[in-house]
């Protein structure tokens, strides 16, 4: 498989955490922006910026990932139920609590009437969105597809993490990442995804075949299991980095890692201190008994 990434945008930037500018904010219609919660607005702004960078007006398909969906709206609607039991409730929080809200809202803004699928499978959500995009791109090589992931943070999650004993080991955060992909390379292409894996019961075991990962890997960006801290098994590689020490943990963090990988691939970041360019980056996440990974190459 080869899925070309023609633009990629994320927020926050894992390699420039001091930069608080949300890319694409100016591209979002002000009226629409006012009706959106702040965290959702950030995600959709990133999507619009990615499309602008790729020169794509309307994507032919939208494939999304999210770990928890619009958790702020979910909590808000639970509060509303509690406060107004038996009374009249506003449907807004409920409507937005649906996991495909971001994908659906982007489609509405752009009148994008192609396929629109949202995956919610923990840290592997984006991987499934990318796999679906790959299937679509193989069937429609001329199509430009929007692939992304967005997750919110809410204070209640910190309280839950605290009682679960995660404090000090895992910092729960939020973030969004969007990419425009296609089956063919074009002038804006930043790299290509050449491998995707989601493997169950793979903790402690090799999840790839030697044929799949036969070439040396310059850099591995990895993230451990949020609950146990268990590390994924990694193939031989030149250098590795715990990317979640930059992004924190949320279901869409692998999207930020994908952007980080593309940044490394395109800025000639050296792995050996001798100026050797990075040509391949493997992003690997462990989540319970599941390992998910994506290989990105120049």
């Amino acid at each position, binding site marked *: 498989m080869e899925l070309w990434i023609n633009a990629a945008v994320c927020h926050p930037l894992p390699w420039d955490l001091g930069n608080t500018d949300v890319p694409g904010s100016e591209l979002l219609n002000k009226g629409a922006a006012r009706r959106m919660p702040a965290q959702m607005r950030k995600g959709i702004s990133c999507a619009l910026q990615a499309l602008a960078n790729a020169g794509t007006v309307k994507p032919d398909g939208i494939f999304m990932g999210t770990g928890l969906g619009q958790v702020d709206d979910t909590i808000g609607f639970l509060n509303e139920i509690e406060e107004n039991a038996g009374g009249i409730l506003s449907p807004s929080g*409920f*409507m937005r609590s649906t996991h495909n809200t971001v994908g659906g*809202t982007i489609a509405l803004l752009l009148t994008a009437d192609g396929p629109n699928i949202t995956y919610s499978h923990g840290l592997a959500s984006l991987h499934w969105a990318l796999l679906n995009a790959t299937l679509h791109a193989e069937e429609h090589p001329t199509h430009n597809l929007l692939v992304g992931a967005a997750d919110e943070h809410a204070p209640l999650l910190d309280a839950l993490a605290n*009682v679960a004993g995660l404090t000090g080991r895992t910092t729960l955060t939020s973030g969004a990442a969007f990419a425009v992909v296609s089956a063919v390379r074009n002038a804006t292409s930043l790299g290509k995804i050449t491998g995707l894996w989601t*493997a169950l019961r793979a903790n402690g075991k090799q999840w790839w075949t030697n044929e799949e990962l036969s070439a040396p890997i310059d850099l591995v960006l990895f993230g451990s299991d949020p609950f146990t801290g268990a590390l994924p098994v990694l193939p031989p590689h030149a250098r590795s980095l715990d990317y979640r020490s930059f992004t924190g943990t949320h279901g869409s963090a692998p999207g930020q890692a994908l952007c980080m990988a593309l940044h490394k691939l395109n800025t000639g970041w050296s792995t050996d201190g001798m100026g050797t360019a990075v040509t391949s980056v493997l992003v690997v996440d462990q989540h319970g008994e599941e390992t998910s990974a994506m290989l990105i190459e120049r």
Partner: protein
Amino acid sequence: MQGLPPTIAITGMGVVSALGNGVAAQLAALRAGYSGIGALRYHDLGFPDLVFGEVPMSDAELKTAVKWADAGSDLSRTVLLGLLAAEEAMASCGAKNKTGLTLISASTVGGMDRTEREYQYRDSDTARLMRAARGHEVSDHTRYVARSVGATQAGTISTACSSSANAIMLGARLLKTGRANAVLAGGADALCGFTIAGFRALSAMDAKACRPFSADRAGMNLGEGAAYVVLERLSDVLESGRKPLAIVAGYANANDAYHQTATSPEGIGPQKAMEGALRVAGITAANVDHVNAHGTATGNNDLTELIAMERLFGKVPPFTSTKSLTGHTLAAAGALEAVFSVLSIRHGFVPPTARAGDVVEGCRSLPVKVPTDMAVRTVLSNSFGFGGNGTSLLFSAA
């Protein structure tokens, strides 16, 4: 030269719904026109003024019915429903073991039934809420089902009411492209106060038993359930000496891109999904014998779905809304109605739309009102959801 893409067969099915536990119970109820809509008996959610398509089993009874020995004591109802239907599907597929099984499941609420029960303790006993919240994610049921059936790969789709139809579509495409050897595809959703309050806030619920495709329809009844199908390449099935139940002939997903919760007045998205499924199958609308419609009984859905069907078919083939029997099971609906479609093909009948009345305003087509025996070789099954997300699946006789 590239050959034709592989044909995808359904080899196993499992269901639990308001019509009962198991495929045989569904078949008997569908043929009898039995409606499972009624007041809640097994949930302590309130809402005495509403009726639902409730699975007629308590959580304890569900747990007893699940065969998987490792099912713990703190599982959400969504997990229990999913385990029960998945076990039946795997047991019925005729193969003792499935190597390299991929599970694609779907849910909209996941473990919300447990989360909402413990939410009141968020400040006073956060640990109590945390125990429930660990099973909150919509993918929680997928992980349990994956363990119970021995899947080596699993993913979860959440596209509201089209979720499990999208799971079947993805499963078929993974098999066609050689990315999977066998797929268990479907979904599960349990009733919970969160969704009931939400759809009530949207004024989408009828206090009485729903009347899809009727002039006096006044909204949906929520339901719960789970359904899974086992998908395999037909060549593999035949090679192993087994017989397929039906063929997944076509599929398509399209976005209406009109409104977050309503379909465009012209039903553009639904028509695009139905046309896409026909295109993948390589057949025309004239070849469709029966439509298992989305048919929620909301004013907007039924009108726009009918408009789209009448434009596509001219004379719409016998169509029905089995949500009048099961309630709207949200993420499980697409897979549930896929199983019903296969039962229509294999047993030669169309299940009724219970309580259907006069024709919808501005339309000319009425649904099938009583169980009707007829030869059914091809069924189009529609699932349309929030965000304008529409999926049509096309099933044909093996």
